[in-house]
Structure formats: C-alpha cells, structure tokens
C-alpha cells in the first residue's frame, strides 16, 4: 500500500509540470497583454514598458516559465496584478464563502440523489420510475441560469422567504440565511444528472445473483438495498463524488455572481476578465493538486469499500 502511494505521489510531478506548461502556453497565446489593461486611458510606450517590466512579462518565455514552476513548487504566487492583493490572501478569504455554499450543496444533493436513485431503481419500469426519469431529463435540459433567475424572483423577491442576495459576517448567518437559496438551487440543478447516473449504477447491481441470494436468505428489502446493493455500487459513486470535489476550489461563479457571494468562483472570473495571471495560475495549480490528491484518495477508498480491489 505504502509503495503504491509513494509511486502515485511521484507521478504528481510530471502531471503538474504538464499543467504548468499548458496554462503558460494558453495564457501567453490567448490571455492578452495585461499592461494595456493596467495602463489606463492614455498609455504611452514608456509606461507600457514600465508595467511590463514590473510584471515580469518583458522577460524571455523560458524565464517566465521557470518562475511559474518555482511558484507552483512553493505555492507562493505573489500578488494580483490588478489589485496588488496577495494571491494566498485571495484564496484564504474567498474559499470560505464558496465552501459554505458548496459543501452542504454536495452533501445534500448526493444523499438525496442516492435515495431517489435507489427508489427508482427498485421501482424500475413503474409509473414513478418513468415520471422521475422524465422529470430528470427535463430538469437537465434547463440551464442553471433559468433556475437561478426564477428561484431568486419567486422565493426571494415575491415570497420574501430568503434574501435576494448578500453576505454577512457570521458563519451561521451566512449558512442559514444567505446560502440557503443558493444551496437549494444548486441541489436541484445537480439532482437530475446524479439520480440518472446513480440509478444506472444500482440497476447494474440490483439484478445480480448475490441480490437474489440475499432475498432468498430472507433479508429485508431495505437491508438488501441499503447494505448489499449500495456497497457494491459504491465504487462508481465514490468516483463521481471525488470527481466533483476539486470543483469546490473553483467555486460556482454563476451562483456566486447572482447571489453576491464573495467566493472563489467570482474571483476567478474577475481574474480572467482582468488578465490577472497570478490568480489564474494559482487556481489552476490548486485545482490540479486537489484533483491528483482526491484521485489518489478515491483509489484508496475503493480498497476500503471493496477488499477485492488490488492496488498496483
């Protein structure tokens, strides 16, 4: 097991180098010259040159790439080109609001999707199954933007059950008041694809022989489903959940913009609009590192869930 973990961690290095190279090429190819955005209304060549020198974009590409590699290795991405704020501080202050919305959203949507998927898998072919599947297909066809606009209008503006937007200073206030509607929207948007996906995992298992055996042994239907079927369907479910986790670091920019949540998603979009490369670099590397670590954890979880899995 230890040898496996060490080997996988060793693979992180070339993967991250690939990410660094890709981001560097993409930014320099399509990112635009930030000096022209920062120079104001009446830039002159001397001023442009001064800005380029201060940002380091006048250096040869190999020097800029080496600096990026050093930053990725140390985790210190310097300061934002647009605001002079330390990039580490941007993440420290914006990650909390994003996680306040996204963590409950992921937990609730996963639990609800599992329950609903189990139900429709059990009732496969019934009217309930068909109705829920049609609902999921329709739900998936609607853009998240529509959900946000309609829910904000009805539940926040018309009914006044939630604030239209905003963010406070206390965790409880933010979670229970300002995050409630964004979480509901996020859960509803992710329910449809998750139910369809998990239903297919359960259906793969529900017709297996071990299920028939369990039933023949006289086990209750609930035990058959929630213990035997769920455990055997757990590997693809774990994969799907782990796949979603790195996204928490990137935030949910549409939800954050419409509900004025000062999260990381809004910051990433701002960084792209402003050609703020230090922030773009940081978020890309953080998400890449999180993806690698969570993939490793997922592999280890497979072993925990199903002892038959061999880690090689």
């Amino acid at each position: 097991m230890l040898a496996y973990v060490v080997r996988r961690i060793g693979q992180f290095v070339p993967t991250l180098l690939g990410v660094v190279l890709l981001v560097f090429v993409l930014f320099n190819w399509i990112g635009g010259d930030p000096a022209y955005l920062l120079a104001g209304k009446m830039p002159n060549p001397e001023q442009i040159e001064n800005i380029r020198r201060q940002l380091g974009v006048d250096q040869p590409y190999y020097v800029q790439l080496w600096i990026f590699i050093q930053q990725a290795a140390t985790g210190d991405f310097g300061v934002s080109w647009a605001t002079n704020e330390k990039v580490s501080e941007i993440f420290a202050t914006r990650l909390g609001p994003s996680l306040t919305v996204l963590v409950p959203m992921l937990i609730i949507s996963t639990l609800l999707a599992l329950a609903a998927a189990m139900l429709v898998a059990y009732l496969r072919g019934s009217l309930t199954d068909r109705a829920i599947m049609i609902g999921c297909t329709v739900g998936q066809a609607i853009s998240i933007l529509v959900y946000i606009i309609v829910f904000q209008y009805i539940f926040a503006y018309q009914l006044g059950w939630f604030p239209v937007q905003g963010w406070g200073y206390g965790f409880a206030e933010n979670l229970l008041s300002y995050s409630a509607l964004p979480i509901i929207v996020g859960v509803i948007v992710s329910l449809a694809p998750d139910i369809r996906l998990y239903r297919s995992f359960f259906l793969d298992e529900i017709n297996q022989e071990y299920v028939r055996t369990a039933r023949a042994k006289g086990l209750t239907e609930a035990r058959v489903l929630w213990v035997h079927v769920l455990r055997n369907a757990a590997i693809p479910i774990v994969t799907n959940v782990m796949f979603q986790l790195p996204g928490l670091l990137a935030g949910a920019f549409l939800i954050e913009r419409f509900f004025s949540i000062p999260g990381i998603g809004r910051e990433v979009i701002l960084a792209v609009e402003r050609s703020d490369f230090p922030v773009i670099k940081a978020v890309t590397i953080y998400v890449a590192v999180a993806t690698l670590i969570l993939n490793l954890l997922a592999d280890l979880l497979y072993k925990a869930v199903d002892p038959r899995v061999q880690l090689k």
Partner: protein
Amino acid sequence: MPAPILRAALVVFALLAGCNDAPRSAPSRAPGAAGPGKVLRVTFQAAETGFDPVQVSDYYSGSVIEAIFDPLLTYDYLARPAKLVPNVTESMPEISDQGRTYLLKIRKGIYFSADPAFKGNRRELTAADYAYSIKRFLDPRHRSPYAFLFEGKIVGLDELAARSKQTGRFDYDARVPGLETPDRYTLRIRLNGTDFNFSHVLAFPLAGAVAREAIEAYGDDTGSHPVGTGPYFVKSYTRSSKIVLEANPGYRGRVWDFQPGADPHEQEIASRMNGKKLPLIGRVEISIMEEAQSRWLAFQREQTDIEYQLAEVAPAFMTGDGKLKPELAKRGIKLDRSVDPEIIYLYFNMRERIGNQPNPVSGFSVERIALRRAIAMAYSVDDHIRIVRKGQAIRAHYPIPPGVAGHDPRYRSGIPHDPRLANALLDRFGYRRGQDGFRAQPDGKPLVIRYSSTPTERDRQFDELMKRSLDSIGIRLEIHKDRFAELIKLENDCRLMMRTSSWIADYPDGDNFMQLLYGPNSGQSNNACYQSPEYDRRYEASRLLPDGPERDRLYREMARLMEVHTVWILADSRYRNVLLQPRVVGYKRHPVLHVEWLYIDLDTGVGK
C-alpha cells in the same frame, strides 16, 4: 457516526467558521458626527480594485476614494455646467504668469482621520501633503494610470521621475521647482507652459492628499488602508464584496449652501437641505452586485437606497418616453435621469498604412474623404441608439458632450443619415460596383473595410449594424474580433482600421475631449491617429485660453474640421438613470463627481 468521521466533520466545520469575513478592525473612535442611524445602502456593478488614489483607474474605486480623500478644489453640487469651488483651500487658486503659476492657500485646522500610522497624534493637513501626493503619480513604482494628468506639466517633476528610473528610487525629498511650499499652508505650482485648465486637475477626485506616514506605514498594501481628510473613512472592507464607510468624526464639516438654478427640483432640494451640516449620512454600505436582476430585485425589496446602473432592465421601471412607471412613482420612488459627460464615436484610422498593408480609409484626398463621408452617411445613429442602446442615449452632435465647458448645444452635424446620397457620392468619386454588387477602390483594387470589436453581445449588435450600413452602400465589411487588451494594443500602434470607442470626462472641460484628435496624442488617446496641422494649430491656441467665447470659436472650427475630414462618426452619449428610494433626500446627479453621498440626506421618517 464513527469518531474519526465525526472529528473530520468538526474540523471542516471549524475551518469554514474560521473563514468568515469578519470586519477589519478600524481605529476606535466615537460614533460618527452624522446621524449614526442614517445608513445609505448602495451597490456597485463591478468590483473595486483598491483605494490608493495613484494606483486605480476604475470608477468604483474612484467613488470610494472620493469619499475618503480631499482634493484641493471640488465642484459646486448644483451648478451646471460643473463649476469649480474651493475644497480645502481658503479661496480659488491665484493664477498668474499667463496661467503658468497656481498659488493655493490651504485652510488651517483640517485633520486626517485617526489611524495607527499617526501613533495617536492628530495629523494636520499641510501643503507638503499635496506636493507629496502629486509626486506619487509620477513614481514609476506605482505605474499610475492617471500619471498623464501631471506628466510634462510641472516644472522639474518629469526630471525627478527620469532620475528615479536611473537610480531605481524615487526621491520624494528632492526639490521640485514646480512644487514649492513657502510655508506650511501654501502650495505654489509652477507649470512648464500656460494651462488655464489645471484647476480641473487639482479638483480631480484621485488628486486628494495622502499622508506620507500612512503610505510608508502600509507599504505595498496602501490599497486597502486609505487614510484621508474627507468626510468618510473605511470601517470595514471585504474585497470584491462589501465596503462599509462611516462618517469621519474629525471631519472639518461643511454646510450645505449651494445656490439652486431655475429648475424647480433644484429649488426643492435647496429648500430642504440649506444650512445643514455635512455629512448627514452616518454610514454608507456598498455591496458589489454584478447582476442587474439582483440589483433590481434588491432595490424593489428596499434592500438598497440608490441604484446607479440598471440600463439592462430599464424597460422594467421606465416608460418609452423616459419617465418612471406610474406604479413606482406611486410608491414614492424617484428617477434622476441625466446624460453622462461622454461621447461614443467610431473612428477611421488616418495612417496611410496599417502594418504592411495600404489603408483604404486613410488620408486627405477627396476620394478618401468621400469614402469616409459615405460610410458616415450610411451609418444610422438613430438605429444605434434604438437597437443597441435600447433608447438609453442621446445623439452626439459635438465632440464635447453636454455638461462640459465648451459644449455647443446649437451645433448640428453636417453629415446626415442618407444612404442614397452616400451611394451617389461613391459613384461620383469612382468607387464602382463589381458584378458581386460590392464596390472597388477608384484604382480598381478591392475595397474591404476592417471593423474591430470585442466578442461581446453588445459589440455583436454593433457589428450587425455596421454590416447593414455598409451593405446599403455596397462596401464589403470584414469583422475583426479580438480581446479588449489586444485591441487596445493594436490601437496604440495605429493598427486598427475602424473601431467604436468612447471617452468619459476626467474633468468637465472641453480640452479633455478636443485633445482626442491632437496629432501628438496619436497612439495614446488619439486613436484615429489623426495628424492635421490645421487642427493641431487651433488646439495649441485653445490651450492658451481660458474657457470663453474665443476658445469656443476655436473648438467649433476644430469640430467642423473633424467633420470635413470625417475622422469620426459621432454617435451618442448615454443616459444615466439613477433610481432613488423615497427616503433619499437632496439627490441630483453631478456630471463629474462620482458619488453624491456627502451632499444628500435620508429621511428616516419615510418607511424603509
């Protein structure tokens, strides 16, 4: 729940709890002198970038800076066109030596808001603070977007900046002959040349005084620690989310004493506000809300008091003729509608070549002027306003917009919208149609107009309008799409053939607009790269004159010259529709000041 999982959950919860955006600790002080219960809630549609006056160029940061810092001069709240008045000075500057020397006497007893940088002492504002603050604009380390306001103007300042580039250190203690402080409260500014408009630069909101101790204390983080002498200070600040300002208890205090004009609305404002001590609002809460729907719903739920920018949802609150909808008026909501001091224009690149390619729209030959004139006649500004602006703009006839000194309301463009005449003009000057229906140049070479724009929805609408216009006169159009930064880069190299551009007043004087066509400004603000000795001669003469009939005459000649050469297609100036809750008292949109928080009141008797 198993113990390890429970512990992990608790750790995650604790981490989240620790990620709160707690208010930044502010210096302890007594409650604001203004009504502490009077809380004004406003929104910005884009995030600020910081509050160091020399490091920002965005409107939103400028709005907060204006509330915190004091420039030497400011503007009368009601006078239109905008009128300069003393701010921290005893009187208007004494201008002598043919507009080359400005003498300013700063009032005694004005103090910076309390800050740990002052180590518990009260810090009085002095002339040296302004000298220091002006020098900062030219310090290369700050890469100030507004350095151009001072560059080349003050005797000895550019030399100091040049020396700093060699030594790597800007010497703030070095003597600058053009920035002298003969005594603690006197500032003498000597300019390299005559400039009667320099008073406007001294009233520029970003030209407020900073204290050197505070700047040095906060090092690279001056953007989040603004310390000024203005009516407000930053109480708490969550970047890109919420900014809370509180009335500065040590503010020198001003009395609302502005003279209303004939406008009944101004007279009503004056009758309610006259004699009140400013500021009246104790706290300003600014939320960043990017989406128009969120701002509009929040305003309707009375979660905000003033909405500055709701152009996207204008049909929801306005009738077709620009009036507030009756149901909103019945609720006491008010609409303040004014035209922004800006112009939107389409320019033609006047350089003979763009890169290695000949430029078919350039030059002063009659054929080229005829081509540009025909395009201008084919472009429908009315459609531009109706379709793209959704009616939220007025046609611009003159390069100087309304509300800015030098604007001529009687001037009318001599170029009508008349595609038939445009076709006749092109036929007359040898732009013959080929078999495909498109015209060639008089020498038979293909004629393709390359129009550049960004890949946004608004610019797509401009593209379609341009395509329709050029199709109507048989000219082939090529749309060049690129990111904004790249377009600016190409524009500064005079490498764009045609683009829609805009300019909003930095200060309310015609010079700020007429310089857009001054030859030496090519590659900077003169994005048409127009080089006309006739225009430049008149512009240079106008710079030696104060605002008045003689300068206006020169401006009219320059505007007509621009039309004769058809360098621009002048399009529009946009409306600013500001929505106010019933409890907001005394609001009138100022054409130059970013925000009016200092001059308004909240009627706490009117339901929130």
